[in-house]
């Protein structure tokens, strides 16, 4: 159980002007500015939950994770993680958590993977029997056997991430913090990481907090998302209600028998809006709460000679981008 209340974190950054004059002036007095990375973030994560933590770059996701992991102390606010305040009781707290930062490694770069695992065992003062038992389980899920004697620096990113996850879970933590665990991974590795995270959450009941920019991660894993922007909680709930909140759009795309029959592309029903006509392909947008999808299809098929028909749901990426308040780049195909 993790409880976060009104978390505020301020950083001081020194600024200086650009160019030579800026560099010279910077040698003397630097302008110091306070930046609020977190501006009152609150949420709860019940034990055993898997929560996706999303938000644009610089929103404060990593800062929150670092505070929860006991690495950083907040400027103000409260955190209770399994009854402890992470930064006050760091060693006792981190003994029960696992942390993976996708952009950093906790493995020993020049030593074979095996050594990193035995070091983790030693750092958590685990008896050798327990290390072996926990490792066997992880090995079964992640297929680590062939990697054990390879120096970490020679692993591919996907292999390394599997090892990172294993290292974080070897001491059987109650809570797992994953900061962008799929960053830079190819599709099969992403799927492997996702499957593993879901499985460990289910089988070991590990409370998991995951930050990511990959919305497929969120869609595949998280029963609940917490969306933060500019250091504030913007949304907290299941992904399906985020769709509602964001006024999800749906599109009806039809291919007509001839380009001529597309005509002016007049919408088949009231409440639908023409998006584009490309040759014999016409696309209409509609709000699924105002227009029933079945009605839209019926009206279109009744009026037009349709060869093919597709109903598209707005991709999560696009939906989130709208919530972030940025206009998503048009890629022309839609």
């Amino acid at each position, binding site marked *: 159980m993790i409880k976060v209340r009104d978390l505020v974190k301020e950083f001081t950054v020194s600024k200086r002007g650009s160019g030579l004059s800026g560099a010279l002036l910077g040698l003397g007095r630097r302008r110091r500015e306070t930046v609020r990375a977190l501006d009152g973030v609150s949420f709860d994560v019940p034990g055993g939950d898997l929560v996706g933590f999303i938000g644009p770059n610089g929103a404060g996701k990593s800062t929150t994770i670092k505070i929860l992991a006991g*690495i*950083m102390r907040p400027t103000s606010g409260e955190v209770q993680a399994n009854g402890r305040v992470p930064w006050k009781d760091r060693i006792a707290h981190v003994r029960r958590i696992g942390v993976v930062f996708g952009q950093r*490694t906790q493995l*020993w770069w020049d030593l074979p993977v095996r050594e990193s695992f035995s070091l983790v065992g*030693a*750092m958590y003062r685990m008896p050798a029997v327990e290390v072996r038992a926990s490792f066997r389980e992880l090995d079964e899920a992640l297929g680590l056997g062939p990697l054990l004697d390879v120096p970490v620096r020679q692993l591919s990113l996907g292999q390394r991430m599997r090892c990172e996850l294993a290292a974080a879970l070897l001491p059987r933590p109650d809570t797992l913090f994953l900061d962008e665990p799929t960053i830079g991974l190819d599709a099969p590795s992403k799927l492997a990481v996702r499957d593993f995270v879901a499985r460990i959450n289910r089988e070991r009941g590990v409370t998991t907090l995951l930050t990511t920019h990959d919305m497929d991660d969120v869609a595949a894993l998280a029963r609940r998302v917490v969306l933060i922007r500019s250091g504030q909680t913007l949304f907290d709930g299941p992904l399906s209600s985020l769709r509602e909140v964001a006024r999800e759009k749906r599109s009806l795309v039809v291919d007509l028998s001839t380009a001529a029959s597309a005509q002016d592309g007049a919408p088949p029903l009231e409440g639908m809006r023409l998006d584009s006509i490309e040759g014999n392909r016409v696309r209409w947008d509609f709000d699924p709460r105002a227009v029933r999808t079945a009605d839209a299809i019926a009206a279109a098929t009744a009026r037009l000679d349709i060869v093919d028909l597709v109903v598209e749901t707005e991709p999560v990426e696009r939906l989130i981008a709208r919530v972030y308040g940025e206009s998503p780049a048009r890629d022309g195909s839609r």
Partner: protein
Amino acid sequence: MNPYLALLSARFRQGLQYRAAAWAGAATQVCFGLFIISALEAFAAARPGAAGPFSRVASYVWLGQALFRLLPWNPDPELRDVVRLGDVGLQLAKPLDLYGAWFAKALGYRLSAATLRALPCLLASAVLLPLVGLGGIALGPPDSVLSALAFAVALPGAVLLSAAITTLYPIFYFRSVSASGAMTIAAAAASLCGGVLAPLPLLPPWMGDALALTPFAFVTDAPFRIWTGMVPPSDILRVLAMQAAWLAICVVLGRAWLGRRLLGVEIAGG
């Protein structure tokens, strides 16, 4: 295994893999030893008996070359990156005392670096040189049984002190993005004060005696003086006590400093 011992041993094993560098380093050290000794021999010819018999000076120089990498002239490169690149965050996420972990790693680093160079260097200076008829400038045995016993205490003390000084360095990195300026000064100070550039007993007394009080001198100078008998038996306890005092000071300072810095740690970026 105790977590700190495990870290020490892992860092030691990691350091041992630089075999090519070790051989090259050992060869350099042997050449340097011969070079310094021939220069000092020329001085000794001009001022006979300045620091006792020349064989003592030769032994001092050889010990200095063999244990050159014990000198805390640089931070453990790994610890430097840990602070600069922000991996300190990952270390804080482990259930370890950060100072203890750093100290253990610095110890492993110094031990591996020193061991790799010491063995070939000792072999060359103590065995090879007498074989080719240069016994006069070879590394001789300890001056007495007492010297040998005291050296057996002073050397581990030197290793610990070296690690304690090394552990102070990365703390500078919390203060500035690049501490290379500070480290250049530290490296120069260490080589001078540790008697590696020139044996402290051969410097003018006002300078040599002052430098012999610095912490660096208790890493590479004091143990060699003990070995060669340059420290009179009545003075041995005082020297060992001062070494222990420097060790305590460096550890207490490092712990306090790191503890204070950690309160304000800021780890930026994803």
